């Protein structure tokens, strides 16, 4: 690069107007290309993203065919989300089966894992008061070890029907879910851990625990809202 520099000093200084014109011209060309690419790919990308989200929700609510997004308002009530969703608002997705019956609610939760923040999505069935599905949205856990929380069928089986029933008071869980040592699961509210990934599997337990403690009472109370919405 040195050589280029020395040639540069020898070249006659371009007038600033020429410089300006060149930069502006280049800027316009670049902006044009970007906008074109953006507009051209936008529909595909949005479709891809929506499909990915849909897929995840489908995974955690077995038997659903359609969904509706609900917003949590500041006074803790759920309202169907309109077209313009505030990005910072918390949302849950209600899933409905063929008959339009509420099949479950997908809730996003996050917490600290072994390596970084874990983001997961789980499905809650208000009728059976169980977690019915589970999907890891984002994880940096060690491949081949901590990432068993995404792939290990034995671990995922924990969430085919994890008991999160409420007490009589309808505000606290009877048995908050908890991760136990691999192979030690004896109760329906326990999550069998993964040997060698104790920390990650316990982190999942903790995330589910704190999220259900907060969400389950709310979802139970507002079941009516969730049921009676026409789906999109």
């Amino acid at each position, binding site marked *: 690069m040195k050589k280029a520099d020395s040639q540069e000093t020898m070249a006659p200084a371009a007038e600033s107007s020429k410089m300006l014109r060149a930069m502006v011209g280049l800027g316009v060309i*670049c*902006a044009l290309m*970007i*906008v074109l*690419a*953006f507009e051209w790919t936008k529909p595909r990308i949005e479709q891809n993203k929506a499909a990915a989200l849909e897929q995840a929700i489908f995974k955690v609510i077995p038997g659903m065919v359609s969904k509706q997004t609900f917003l949590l308002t500041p006074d803790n009530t759920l309202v169907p989300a309109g077209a313009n969703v505030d990005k910072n608002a*918390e949302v849950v997705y209600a899933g409905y089966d063929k008959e339009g019956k509420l099949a479950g609610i997908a809730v996003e*939760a*996050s*917490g*600290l*894992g*072994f*390596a*970084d*923040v874990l983001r997961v999505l789980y499905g809650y069935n208000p009728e059976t008061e169980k977690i019915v599905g589970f999907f890891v949205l984002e994880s*940096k856990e060690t491949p081949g070890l901590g990432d068993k929380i995404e792939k290990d069928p034995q671990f995922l089986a924990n969430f085919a029907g994890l008991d999160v029933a409420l007490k009589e008071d309808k505000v606290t869980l009877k048995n908050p879910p908890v991760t136990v040592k691999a192979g030690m699961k004896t109760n329906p509210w326990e999550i069998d851990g993964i040997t060698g990934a104790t*920390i990650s599997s316990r*982190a999942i337990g903790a995330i589910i625990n704190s999220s259900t403690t907060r969400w389950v009472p709310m979802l139970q109370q507002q079941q009516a809202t969730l049921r009676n919405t026409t789906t999109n």
Partner: protein
Amino acid sequence: MKTESLWYIFINASLINNFVLAYFLGICPFLGVSGKLETATKMGGAVTFVMLISSMCAYGLHAFLIAVNAPFLQLISYIVVIASTVQLVEMFIKKMSPALFRALGIFLPLITTNCAILGLALFQTNKGYGFIESIVYALGAGVGFTFALVLMAGLREQLEFAEVPNVVKGTALTLLIAGILSLTFMGFAGLGS
């Protein structure tokens, strides 16, 4: 939902997910400037400084781009704004504190378009950090970068006087040490969880 305390953000960026040793960001200066402790320290200082500035720029820019609904300009605007801000700050420092300029000055242009800086800006945006969180993140990343760089420089200075086999000499040795350091930093995993 907020899950990360500021303390965790700092520890995470500096030790657990060290930019150099876990994310592979800023490898070029890491390989290039880790031969001498003195330059390494200054480089670390300069990177931390630029990271703080970039972090603030990126925070403001992101808010602006969201407001005008032009997310596609993110990359271009980050790189242009960060580079020019650092240049401005550089000129400012030159005026205000020639000593500081002498210490950091030569490194600033080198690192403005370095991937650790841009990576920081992009990560903090992806993670959706607020202003304070972003600054803490930048500080953590800078401190972590400096820590890794300074450790490496110490080791390399010592190894100048070792009978390193010829085939290993040079970049290969530095990379191997980086690998061992990376393993070492894995000990911090899960800290604060």
